[in-house]
């Protein structure tokens, strides 16, 4: 009878096991079948190449090129130490360094770890030949964003970065994934949706070691679209070199169309650095640098324009009849308002000045008087007429709007009433007036074209679209011809008369018009400006040179403007 007990225990066990079998194979069978399918197949991500950004002449500013990278596949790497030892003499990196890169880059068993990027071609071939000796090590082609011009296009083109987790939740519906890089600034950000391609994939059967057994499906990656922008690569490099690393910006624009030929901010950054994980320290130092190389001064610096704003003041005063071309004010180097003293930049004074001379010599006293006659409303009207205080609508991200102050703003933000002294300095582009270099270049463009206030833009064509993208929506201003002619006469004298402040920008064959500016700032040396257009008789281009704390506009900014104009002439733009 005891035997029967034992028998029942054993048979009971068998029955329990059979129930277990039934549950696993019949009731949950479908689910396990799916899991075994997932087990045996992998989706290999094939990144799509990003669209190329070409300059107006077809020179690439940003392009994906095929590079070779050295990677290790963890699940096939049986003996890492030995692999590093074998690799080290070939690639010329110590095995400790290789081990360190491997540890840092490890994510999952089936995901390759990059050990070296951008291998020279002969090294890639050599490694491929040695493949038998190096199990688990592979050389693979990777499309990589390359910026041939480096820092010269940093501000305009921007750079790529990984998507931040918080952005990802927002962008997921548009097909972005966590491993995607997206434009973080400049054109790369602005036209990310055009430039990014559609990633493909390879569906393969693998064994437990992750080795490929057979291919099941293939979705080819789709390259992003190529775009063409109005920038001139050569001009970018020249302008960047002219700035010589000092803080500032240089821009050139076609006055009729608003096409931006040149947009340089300095100091700049090399967008290639963001594509290379071995240049992390360089990126950190870029972010820490007090000169702020990542800050696009051309469209985001909000600074007082100083004397270059006098062109607007002069136009408004002439148009409204507050002054006539014949009106003169005597400059003795100082201007008195009650007990307050406002100085002209020339302490000896300019003597009697009319409006053309006022512009030509950049006489502050003349414009103190003019500004006082116009009043804060009049000056503010002039500023807003020429598009200050609002964004120009350029196709680049995060453009600054600037600020046109008025008494109400003064009360709300600065907490004191608008004083008559504020009006005096407002007239010469000081007070709380803040503009970007881009806005001032557009203002001079509007004067040059006698009223075309363009929307500056860079994109001119997209691959696959027949119609060119000239999206600039110009605003046609109704300007007073006579007043404008007087202002333009003044701007021409600035450069072309022997007593003009902008003599350094004078050209032998082309008549240039412009205005210098030396904008006082509370913290350090004044900002140097030079803004203008050429040729004076039938303007094609307007330009701006801005030097942050650059001192005298007529001197430093004027010299750069002169150099820039010479090159523009040489390149056939003038």
């Amino acid at each position, binding site marked *: 009878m005891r035997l029967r007990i*034992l028998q029942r225990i054993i048979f009971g066990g068998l029955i329990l096991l059979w129930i277990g079998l039934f549950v696993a194979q019949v009731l949950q069978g479908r689910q396990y079948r799916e899991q075994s399918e997932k087990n045996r197949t992998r989706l290999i991500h094939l990144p799509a190449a990003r669209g190329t950004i070409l300059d107006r002449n077809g020179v690439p500013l940003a392009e994906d090129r095929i590079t070779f990278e050295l990677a290790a596949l963890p699940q096939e790497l049986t003996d890492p130490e030995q692999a590093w030892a074998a690799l080290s003499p070939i690639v010329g990196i110590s095995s400790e360094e290789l081990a360190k890169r491997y540890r840092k880059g490890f994510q999952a068993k089936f995901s390759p770890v990059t050990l070296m990027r951008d291998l020279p071609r002969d090294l890639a071939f050599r490694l491929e030949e040695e493949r038998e000796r190096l199990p688990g090590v592979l050389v693979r082609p990777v499309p990589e964003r390359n910026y041939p011009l480096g820092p010269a296009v940093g501000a305009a083109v921007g750079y790529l970065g990984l998507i931040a987790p918080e952005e990802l939740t927002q962008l997921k519906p548009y097909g972005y994934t966590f491993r995607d890089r997206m434009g973080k600034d400049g054109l790369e950000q602005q036209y990310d949706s055009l430039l990014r391609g559609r990633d493909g994939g390879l569906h393969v059967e693998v064994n437990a070691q992750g080795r490929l057994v057979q291919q099941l499906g293939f979705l080819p990656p789709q390259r992003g679209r190529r775009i063409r922008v109005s920038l001139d690569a050569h001009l970018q490099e020249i302008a960047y070199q002219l700035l010589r690393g000092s803080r500032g910006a240089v821009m050139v624009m076609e006055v009729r169309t608003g096409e931006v030929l040149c947009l340089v901010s300095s100091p700049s950054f090399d967008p290639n650095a963001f594509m290379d994980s071995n240049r992390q320290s360089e990126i950190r130092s870029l972010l820490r640098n007090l000169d702020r190389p990542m800050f696009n001064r051309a469209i985001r610096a909000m600074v007082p324009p100083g004397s270059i704003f006098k062109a607007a003041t002069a136009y408004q005063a002439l148009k409204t009849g507050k002054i006539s071309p014949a009106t003169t004010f005597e400059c003795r180097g100082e201007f008195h308002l009650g007990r307050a003293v406002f100085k002209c930049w020339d302490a000896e004074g300019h003597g009697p000045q009319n409006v053309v001379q006022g512009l030509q010599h950049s006489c502050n006293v003349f414009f103190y008087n003019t500004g006082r006659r116009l009043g804060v409303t009049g000056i503010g009207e002039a500023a807003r007429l020429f598009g200050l205080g609002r964004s120009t609508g350029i196709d680049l991200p995060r453009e600054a709007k600037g600020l046109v102050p008025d008494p109400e703003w003064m009360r709300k933000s600065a907490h004191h009433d608008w004083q008559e002294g504020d009006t005096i300095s407002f007239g010469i582009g000081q007070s709380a007036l803040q503009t970007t270099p881009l806005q001032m270049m557009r203002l001079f463009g509007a004067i040059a074209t006698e009223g075309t206030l363009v929307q500056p833009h860079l994109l001119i064509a997209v691959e696959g679209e027949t119609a060119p993208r000239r999206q600039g929506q110009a605003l046609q201003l109704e300007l007073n011809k006579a007043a404008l002619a007087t202002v333009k006469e003044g701007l021409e004298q600035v450069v072309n008369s022997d007593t003009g402040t902008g003599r350094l920008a004078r050209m032998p064959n082309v008549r240039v018009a412009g205005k210098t500016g030396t904008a006082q700032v509370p913290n350090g040396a004044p900002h140097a400006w030079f803004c203008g257009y050429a040729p004076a008789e039938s303007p094609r281009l307007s330009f701006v040179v801005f030097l942050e704390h650059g001192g005298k506009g007529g001197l430093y900014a004027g010299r750069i403007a002169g150099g820039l104009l010479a090159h523009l002439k040489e390149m056939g733009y003038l």
Partner: protein
Amino acid sequence: MLSRRQIQGLDRLFLFSTLLLLGIGLLALYSAAFQKTQMTGISFLHRQLVWAALGCGLAILLVVVDYHLWLEWSYPLYVLTLLLLGLVLVMGTVRGGAQRWLSVGGMTIQPSEFAKLATILAVARYLGNRPPISNRWSSVLGACILIGIPMAMILKQPNLGTACVFGFIGLAMLLVWGIPLRALVIVLSIALISIPLLWCFLEDYQRSRLMVFLNPNLDPLGAGYTVIQSRIAMGSGQFWGKGWLAGTQNQLNFLPERHTDFIFSVVGEEWGILGTTLCMTLFFLSFHRGFIIATQTRDPFGRLLIVGLITMLAAHTLVNMGMVMGMMPVVGLPLPFMSYGGSWLMTCLVAVGIILSVGVRRPVF
């Protein structure tokens, strides 16, 4: 030599079931080792066939010779296996952190498998000589010592699974012999109390296996990997199976140890519930016939012998299938007749021979 009457008394259903299991095992092994054989050129099937042939010959010999002869020799055999087990601890081959094998002339043997047989013989002789009427407590103690010595040595290797099998065998034989219920309770409670003590003596890999049994996803690429992959293989076989040589889990190498301990998951994946149910039915039939022989025999030695052997086979079957399905911790017990391994296959076939030997000598009505 057997008489004609004895030959007719051969338990054909038992023989048929075990031989069929052996055949299914060889087919499954061919599939499980298919890739490995193609790559390395080592044929696991050939080796297993050699072992099977040797084992069958041995079984025939055991049927022909009266098993009482082996009972005579049981104590010397017992001492011999203890010596072998001692040798394993001193100079055994270490594989996967455990010292279980002896290398003899290029072959490795696992003495713990043979120790099961020797211990069953020794315990059967010891208890068979002592009817459960007088001195029952001292007999229980003696049997416990007989089982305890090899069990402790195997635990030291360490080989938790096999040690447990010794425990099951001992309990079953004592139960059938007629252990007083009070003594049974005491033995069981000692066993239960020693579990936490045992935990302290376990190797890290054994602890992790037990932990992983409780939650396989604890370490899906490490200790839990085998269980998860085996369960996926079993379940994905569904009703009809994926077909012989067509199991993706098996052929694409997702199942580790699939030709030895996890052979049953290959059956499950490729032959579906049809194949697994067939195997279980055959196991059931063979155990059932074994118990019938045990009831019919008048010989207390023979009955104890069969109980020990059937318990050994059943314990291996239940624990192995349980672990393959993730219903029990992975303790490394092979499946009778089917798992690859010479020592174990020989042990199983010897057990078949002895059971049949008892069967042919039982009184037939």
